[in-house]
């Protein structure tokens, strides 16, 4: 079997606001034999800086890509936004003229990007390198009584052109299959493709909350036990901000939100608190922890 080694790109939000995502992803990686290398100088992916300067975004992404390249390894990411920023930059840096321009600037910090390093989301690596069938074969905890719905995160799917036909943005299936592999029951819902609004949040809370509320309302009506997603920005909106959204809209959502590695970890027999950090999730998944006991 191919040796699975990656540079782990954490980004800004995961390690600081959603440490349980990092914790559970590292547990999954250890359990499945994926080696993760941490590089100290990895910085922000640049996804917000393209707002102010497209070149700033390219430089930040290029810096991270070049750093991984010094190790001769590909990058694995946890955040859909980081995945998008790095992958889109990688695509743009295929153009020699652009790469030269960026490399001239990168040389001032002693780096050069040659265009080799690939970027894939954690879930994509699970899907492509390990596969839902292999995951299913390793399940030791019965989750069939749990009902959940997936949320993909826009940058996990789009722009389609940069993702090599990995999934179908209009009818995505990979997270569905990864969830089914854990044995949990899948609940389909209408607003699957709706964006969480996380990037609008810093500039307009009202708009972002109204948007996130649409999906929460939909899922409340479906009666799911929890939402399963795999992006820290989406988690911040549907999880961390859910109490505020509920207050603003006046609806009793209280729908727990799990990161996919947490759900998979449960299926693979991990300790919900020590290995997966479920006690840190907002809203608190008390009922879920009760049923697992």
């Amino acid at each position, binding site marked *: 079997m191919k040796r699975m080694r990656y540079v782990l790109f954490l980004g800004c*939000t995961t390690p600081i606001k959603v440490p349980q995502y990092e914790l559970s992803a590292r547990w999954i990686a250890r359990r499945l034999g994926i080696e993760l290398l941490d590089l100290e100088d990895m910085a922000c992916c640049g996804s917000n*800086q393209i707002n*102010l300067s497209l070149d700033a975004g390219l430089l930040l992404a290029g810096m991270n890509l070049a750093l991984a390249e010094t190790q001769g390894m590909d990058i694995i990411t946890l955040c859909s936004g980081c995945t998008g920023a790095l992958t889109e930059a990688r695509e743009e840096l295929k153009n020699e003229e652009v790469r030269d321009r960026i490399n001239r600037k990168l040389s*001032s910090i002693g780096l050069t990007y040659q265009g080799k390093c690939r970027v894939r989301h954690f879930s994509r690596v699970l899907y492509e390198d390990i596969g839902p069938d292999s995951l299913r074969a390793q399940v030791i905890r019965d989750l069939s009584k749990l009902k959940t719905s997936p949320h993909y995160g826009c940058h996990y799917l789009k722009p*389609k052109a940069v993702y090599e036909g990995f999934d179908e943005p209009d009818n995505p299936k990979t997270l569905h299959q990864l969830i089914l592999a854990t044995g949990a029951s899948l609940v389909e819902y209408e607003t699957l493709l709706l964006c969480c609004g996380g*990037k609008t949040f810093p*500039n307009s809370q009202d708009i972002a909350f109204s948007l996130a509320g649409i999906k929460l309302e939909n899922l409340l009506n479906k009666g799911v036990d929890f939402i399963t997603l795999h992006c820290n920005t989406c988690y911040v909106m549907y999880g961390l901000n859910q109490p505020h959204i509920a207050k603003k809209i006046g609806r009793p959502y209280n729908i727990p939100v799990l990161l996919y590695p947490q759900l998979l970890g449960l299926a693979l027999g991990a300790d919900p608190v020590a290995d997966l950090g479920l006690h840190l999730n907002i809203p608190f998944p008390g009922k879920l922890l009760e049923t697992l006991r």
Partner: protein
Amino acid sequence: MSHEPHKPHEMHEPYKPHEMLNHHEPYEPIRVLQLDRNFRFEVAATHPSAQELNACFTCGTCSAGCPIHRVYPEYDPLKMLRMVHLGMRREVLSSEYIWYCATCHTCEHRCPQKVKFFDILNILKNLAAKEGYTPYAWTNQVRQLRQTGLVFPTEGAWVKIRAELSLRPLKCNGKNVARLLELVGLDQIDQIDRHDQNNQHDQINRPDQPDHEANSGRGRS
């Protein structure tokens, strides 16, 4: 025979373009001669992604699929694109709306003419930033980045949580990031805030605040 002065605003509900742009600016009629007819070419020439700007045939698929338009109809990709076409440079660049994009890529994913509105909007934001219209949330991120290389401070309540979970301490080289940002002129941009100084929320991104406030920037209105 004497004529009453023509008062269109008394005959019709007044048209208020300022409501579609900045809520704060007084309404002034748009004069054709004041439009910047080269604006669309300026934008299209900035980046290869913007080249299809003039291929738009105004079908409105971008707006129909836009999640922000769905909850806030005044945010309207097609309208913004038409304003670029018409040369409403000042109105577009000073608009708060260009900053509301959720970056979901749906507009360009569905566009039958391959107009990359998402990329065009980024170019508009880049131009607006150069002219000092950057919202505080983003200038503050640049300030933070130059210190720590991340968009958050490297100390706060979360340090303890990471230690309790036995996660490694975060180390990042803010110096390298600061150097790169300097090379693209962003060390200057973070001096300028779009909004007045009195109204800044300095608690942005401070991790010991409740997350809602800590991450929020400023709400609309």
